[in-house]
């Protein structure tokens, strides 16, 4: 009797801890993974350092201030460059839309002008890094047809493996993306992007994961490698502060042009 009770409790705890989501569809898993942004923690102001490494191993550093928040179930991000000096003050505003393409604006301090980023400009390198604007939005993963592949393990972590084929018209440069999403916290710790010839072009790996005060996972360090060009970008969150309430005014074109 006692043994049965004990085994039941252990089994129950195991089920609750690990396999409670076994019945989730690929779409549901991706939707949960999308809550974790590579641009820093939700509801925070983060200081981020991007280290760009070229084929020869030479490094260049970009410093950014990133404000990010989910408002009305949609991600809003404001990115402001603080280094290097020649592009200091250049700012980006990302606004996720429920349908269609997300809105993106760019403020160029030298021209004192705000410009919309349209179409294929989203596939451009973000600050010369291996991230494209679309990668930061994770648009390729969101607007896609998802398929669950066999589960796998990365290091000690059990992961769902999802294949996402971006829908026509999503503006994605990839034919497909394979994502390894941790079962315990739904963080997509590895993404593999394949180009239109189905050749692996990029790999993203979440190397450092923190937890906020509520114990929720926060992406702290991400490495994106372009395996075809043999370049990589390490994006590291150096520090972050809570935005507090009333931050919605931050994510406006008006604020974009204020600078600093």
């Amino acid at each position, binding site marked *: 009797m006692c043994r049965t009770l004990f085994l039941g409790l252990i089994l129950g705890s195991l089920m609750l801890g690990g396999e409670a989501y076994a019945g989730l569809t690929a779409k549901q898993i991706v939707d949960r993974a999308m809550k974790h942004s590579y641009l820093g923690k939700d509801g925070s102001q983060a200081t981020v350092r991007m280290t760009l490494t070229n084929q020869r191993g030479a490094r260049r550093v970009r410093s950014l201030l990133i404000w990010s928040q989910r408002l009305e179930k949609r991600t809003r991000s404001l990115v402001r460059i603080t280094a290097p000096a*020649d592009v200091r003050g250049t700012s980006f505003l990302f606004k996720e839309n429920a349908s269609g393409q997300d809105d993106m604006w760019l403020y160029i301090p030298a021209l004192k002008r705000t410009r919309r980023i*349209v179409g294929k400009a989203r596939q451009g390198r973000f600050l010369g890094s291996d991230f494209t604007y679309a990668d930061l939005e994770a648009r390729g993963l969101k607007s896609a047809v998802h398929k669950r592949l066999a589960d796998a393990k990365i290091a000690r972590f059990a992961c769902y493996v999802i294949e996402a084929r971006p829908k026509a018209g999503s503006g994605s440069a990839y034919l497909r993306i394979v994502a390894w999403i941790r079962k315990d916290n739904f963080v997509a710790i590895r993404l593999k992007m394949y180009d239109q010839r189905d050749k692996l072009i990029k790999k993203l790996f979440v190397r450092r994961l923190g937890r906020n005060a509520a114990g*929720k996972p926060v992406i702290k360090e991400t*490495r994106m490698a372009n395996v075809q060009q043999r370049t990589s970008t390490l994006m590291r969150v150096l520090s*972050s502060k809570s935005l507090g309430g009333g931050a919605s005014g931050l994510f406006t074109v008006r604020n974009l042009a204020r600078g600093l």
Partner: protein
Amino acid sequence: MIRPRVTVGLVVAGVWLASALLCPAVGAPAPADEVIEDPEDDLRPRVRPAPRRRAAPRRRAAAAEEVIDDPEDKHRPSPQKGAQPKQATPGPAFVPRILVGGSLGLWTAFDVRHEGRRRGVAGDQRATEDVFEMLTRARLNVESRFRKWAKVRVEARLTHWASCERPGSDQVLWLGNGEAWRSRAEVELGEAYVDLYLGPVDLRLGQQIVSWGLGELINPNDVVNPRDLRQGLLAFDDDRRLPVLAVRAAVHWRWLKVEVVWLPFFKAHRMDLYGSDFALLGPGASSRLAEAEHQIERLLDPTLHRFAQPLLLQTRRPADDLTASTAGFRLSTSRRGWDVALQYFFGWDLTPALSVDEQVYGMAMEGRLFINQSINLAALLPLVEGRSLYRSTYEHTHQLGLSVGKAFEHLAVKLDVSYQPDRGFIRTDPVAGPFGNDVLNLRVEHHTLLSALSVEYAWGSKLVAQLQGVHLALLDRRRADPRELMGFLREAHAALVVGYVRLQLLRQTLLITAAAAVDLLHGSFTLAPMVHYKITDQWRVGVGALVFEGKPDTLFGAWTRNDHLWADVRWSF
């Protein structure tokens, strides 16, 4: 034998149950965290959390950080000591920031179509030409957001320009043998303003640049700031707008933005009348105007040339008081990919209104202004009679503008239309006599419609292409009007096509740019290819060319003698 194991199992189960259900602070962290209010979570309950409670989960969070190495990655970064990310800390939404930056740049150009040394050669009446030019620019700026609602920016600018001519047409120019050196140095305040963000109102007070209109190449609605035109009319690699002292208020109301700007004082375009390649009466100007430069130089001692220019450009300025103030407003909205703006500006027409005494003008046209290398005293007769020989003033103008932009899937289309009922132009054709004792007004006013339609395309961040069609229509100009305006305009309209292509390679370190403008009516054009390379994040070098082609007395053909190759280096910090 079984009993101890059962006992241990029961104890473990009891502890597990107790920890999971009754004592969350001791047990698994996740349920416990759900109870403790997250200071970084904006959706948290309105109750302010106690400091002690905030501290505990942070310590736990620090311990919970995970570092995972990609087992597939052979080139993974090695762990870096001393660069560990700090944990998220609760803090105010605003942190005061201060940024100090600047740049130092050296630009040099060599004229490839020069005609040898001009000044000082006996009998040579051609205008001076800059064969070698050197422009040094230093910028230092400090910007501080010291309050959530306030920001200040101050910029200091130092500019030094020098040029020289070749010693002779058969000699190679190197800096040591350059002759007829000219230079100027300017130390001035650039942008210097205070921003106040007061609810729906953004206020900017001070010296500033106001960007109106949507186009980024030629923008007819960007009318608030004067320009520095001393290095040419078109600039593809530089912002030549001059900051003006102004008060600007932008009121944001739902999807509408209302902008009001007030400029208390007058500020003119910065241009050379003579003595440099792009001067109004310089070597690149039309032949009739270039002749005038020579006559001015003969009137004045060379040591006075630099000081005489501003006086000749403006013999009477608008008063330095509030009577010279100008103002405008702009309504704009941005909805569903559309950007629409309407603007009105009551400002100064920055093209000088020139008038000349008829007798002096007639003598100049007939070549009687000088007799045997000396000024004809008869030309000074109007002075004796109390009249001015020459006047250069400024007139008010009204400007109405409309801007419409739409972002499509792969393109952005922008239209800027500007209407001025009283836009001034300088008449440059020879006026037929007879000449009396009146003043001959060389300013011609027209109802002017200037439109610019731009199409922008971007292919990733590698390629950005912009194509712009510009049309100028003088609405009230008669077809048979024989007057020539501004040295090239003999019709009631003019049309330009401007193109700009920028290619970024090698992770945005190599920048290849080509810009061109074609005058469709007369076939003249200008071409500006350039290549920049970022050696490091601080150092950038570049080379380029500026080429003009076309018949004389056309918009770009007039400047063919100013073709040059240039190189620059810039350090930013």
